[in-house]
C-alpha cells in the first residue's frame, strides 16, 4: 500500500556567499496513514528543517536540491508555490514550537481560525465559525464561544497551544507536523498537550511527524523513530526497539545520556565533543570524531542507511 508520506533522498542546501552548505543529505523515511513518526536529534541536526522542507517553507537562501516528497500521490518538491499553498494548512498542518509566537498578536482567535478554513474551502463565515467552535471543543477548550473573540495575549501558553492544535485540525488534514510542540510549555502542560495530540491522531487516523529532542515524549507517542545527526538519519526503526536496544553509537550515547539510565548518585553520562558545524563537517562519517568505535574506514567513507541483521535501518560500518 502506498504510504501517506514518502520522503526519498531529500537534500537541502543553503547557498551562502562563499560556499554551499548541505544541511540535509539523503533523508528518507515514510509515514503511513495514521502512523506516528518521531524525529529526534540534537539542536542543529536538521530535524526542524526536515519538517519545514516538506511544505517547502524553508527560508532563503535554503532550497531543496534533490530527492522527492511524495504525499497523497503528488511530489511536493515539484509543486509550484500556488499548488503547495493548497496543501499547506489543508492536507498537512503544522504546529510550531512556541505558541506565544505563533499566533498573530493583533488578530482575534476567530479571525485566525476562520481565515484558515476560508483559504482552502469556499464556505461562509458562519459555517467556518461553526467548524472552528467544533474543533475548539475537540481540544477541550472551556467556553469556546468566548475564546473566539479573544486575542492571543489573553490566553495562557497551554491554551494557546490547544488553539494552534485546533487550527491544525480545521481542515481534517492527513498529516500533522509538530515541531517541538511542548518545548515552550510547563512540564504539567506538556503531558496534557502530548496526550491530546496522541488522542486526536488516533481518533482521526492522522499521521504525525513529531520533531523533538525529548526521547521520553517520543517513546510515549510514536510508533517509529528516526534519529538525525548532522543532516542525516543515522538510525530508524520501531520506537520501542530503538529506545530499548539502540544500535548506532550516537543513539546509544543519546539513550545513555538520559538521567534515568544512570544509577542514583552516579555522574550523568554524556557524548564527548559537540556536533560539528555544517560548514566544517568531518570527512567520512560525520560522527567519527565523537565515536568510541571509530575505525579507519569511518574517517574515509560515508556510511549509508542500510537494513542490518536485526531489521533496523542504521548508518554505521561498525553495526552488523
Amino acid at each position, binding site marked *: 500500500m502506498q504510504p501517506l508520506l514518502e520522503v526519498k533522498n531529500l537534500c537541502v542546501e543553503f547557498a551562502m556567499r562563499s560556499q554551499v552548505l548541505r544541511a540535509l543529505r539523503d533523508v528518507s523515511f515514510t509515514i503511513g496513514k495514521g502512523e506516528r513518526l518521531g524525529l529526534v536529534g540534537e539542536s542543529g541536526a536538521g530535524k526542524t528543517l526536515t519538517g519545514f522542507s516538506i511544505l517547502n*517553507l524553508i527560508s532563503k537562501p535554503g532550497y531543496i536540491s534533490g530527492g522527492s516528497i511524495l504525499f497523497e500521490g503528488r511530489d511536493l518538491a515539484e509543486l509550484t508555490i500556488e499548488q503547495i*499553498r493548497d496543501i499547506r*494548512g489543508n492536507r498537512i498542518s*503544522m504546529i510550531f514550537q512556541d505558541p506565544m*509566537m*505563533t499566533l*498573530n*498578536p493583533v*488578530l482575534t482567535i476567530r479571525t485566525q481560525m476562520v481565515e*484558515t478554513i476560508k483559504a482552502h474551502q469556499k464556505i461562509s463565515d458562519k459555517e467556518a465559525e461553526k467548524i472552528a467552535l467544533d474543533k475548539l471543543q475537540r481540544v477541550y477548550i472551556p467556553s469556546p464561544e468566548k475564546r473566539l473573540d479573544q486575542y492571543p495575549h489573553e490566553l495562557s501558553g497551554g491554551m494557546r497551544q490547544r488553539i494552534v492544535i485546533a487550527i491544525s485540525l480545521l481542515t481534517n488534514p492527513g498529516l500533522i507536523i509538530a515541531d517541538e510542540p511542548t518545548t515552550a510549555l510547563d512540564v504539567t502542560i506538556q503531558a496534557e498537550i502530548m496526550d491530546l495530540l496522541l488522542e486526536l491522531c488516533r481518533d482521526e487516523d492522522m499521521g504525525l511527524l513529531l520533531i523533538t529532542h525529548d526521547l521520553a515524549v517520543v517513546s510515549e507517542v510514536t510508533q517509529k523513530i528516526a534519529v538525525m545527526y548532522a543532516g542525516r538519519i543515522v538510525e530508524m526503526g520501531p520506537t520501542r526497539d530503538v529506545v530499548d536496544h539502540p544500535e548506532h553509537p550516537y543513539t546509544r550515547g543519546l539513550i545513555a545520556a538520559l538521567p534515568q539510565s544512570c544509577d542514583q548518585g552516579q555522574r550523568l553520562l554524556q557524548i564527548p565533543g559537540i556536533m560539528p558545524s555544517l560548514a566544517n563537517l568531518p570527512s567520512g562519517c560525520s560522527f567519527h570524531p565523537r565515536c568510541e568505535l571509530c575505525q579507519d574506514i569511518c574517517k574515509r567513507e560515508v556510511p549509508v542507511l542500510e537494513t542490518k541483521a536485526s531489521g533496523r535501518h542504521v548508518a554505521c560500518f561498525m553495526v552488523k
Partner: protein
Amino acid sequence: MVAFIIRRVLQGMMVMVVIALIGFAIKQSFGDPVREITGISVSAEEREALREELGLNDPFMVQFGRFLYNAAHGDLGQSFFYKKPAMEVILSKAPATLELVFCSAILIVLLSVPLGIYCAIRPKQLFAKFVMGASTVGVSIPVFLTAIMLIYIFSIELHWLPSFGRGETVNIGGWQTGLLTWDGIKHLIMPTVALSSIMLPLFIRLIRSEMMEVLQNEYIKYAWAKGLPPLRVWIVHAFRNTLLPVITVGGVQLGITIAFTILTETVFSWQGMGSMFIQAVERADSSLMVAYLVVVGFIFVVVNTVVDIIYGLVNPTVRITGRK
C-alpha cells in the same frame, strides 16, 4: 476605552499648560508692552498707572493665571502689527496651512504605504532598490532646495505650474479653500510635493524596515504554513503589526510637518501660518509669535492624542490596559 481617552485628554491638557507657560515666559521677557502701546511721549507716572491698570505689576503666577484664563477663552492677546486679536489673525491664515499639511499627509500615506510594503517584501527587486536609493536622496535634500528646484523646473522652464501664492480660493463658511478650484489645486501641487519631500522618504524607510522585521516573526511563518494567500499574509498579518510603530512615529512626524511649513510657505509665498510667523518674528510682534506657538502646540497635542487613541484601537494589548 472611555477611561483611556479621558486619561489621554488630561495628559494633553497638562502639556498645553506647559506650552502656555513657556510661551508666556517668552512674552514676559520680550519687552515692555506699555511702551509699545503708548509710545515715548507719555510720562512715567501715566505709564505706571497704565501698568497697574493692565495688571503688569501683579506677581508672575497671577499674570500667568490670567493669560491661561484668556487663552482658554480663545484670547491670545493683540497683534501689534495687524491691530487685531492674534487669534483672529492666525485663524485667517490657518486654512492655507492646514490644507497644505492635509494634502501632504494624504500624499505621504498614499505613496509610502504601498512603496514601503513593496520594498519590504521584494527587497532585492531593482525597483525596490531604486526607491530606497531615491529616498536617501530625498531625505538628504533640504526642503527649501527641493522647493527652489521645483520652481525652476516646472515654473520657469516648463511653465506648467505657478510658482507662488494660493491662486483662486473659494470661501466656504469662513474657510478660504483652494481645493475647489482648478487654479487653487495647481497652486497646491508644488508646495505639497516640497513639503512631503522629507517625510515621504522617511515614511517609506520606516514602513519598509518595520515590515521587514515583522516578516521575520514566527506568526508570519505560521501564516504561510496555514496556506493563506500571499496578500492576506502581507496585508492582514504583517502590515497590521507594522502599523503600530508607524502610527506612533507618524503622529509625531505629522506635527513636525507643520513646522516644515514655515520653510515651504516662505519659498512659495504661501499666505499661511508659517509665513505669518516669519513676518511676526521680523516685526517683533511678540503676541502673535506666542499665539502661533500656543496654536501649533495645541495642534501637536491634538494630533498626538488622536494618534494615541488610534493606536489603542489597532493594538488590542493597549485597549485592555485602557479598560481596566
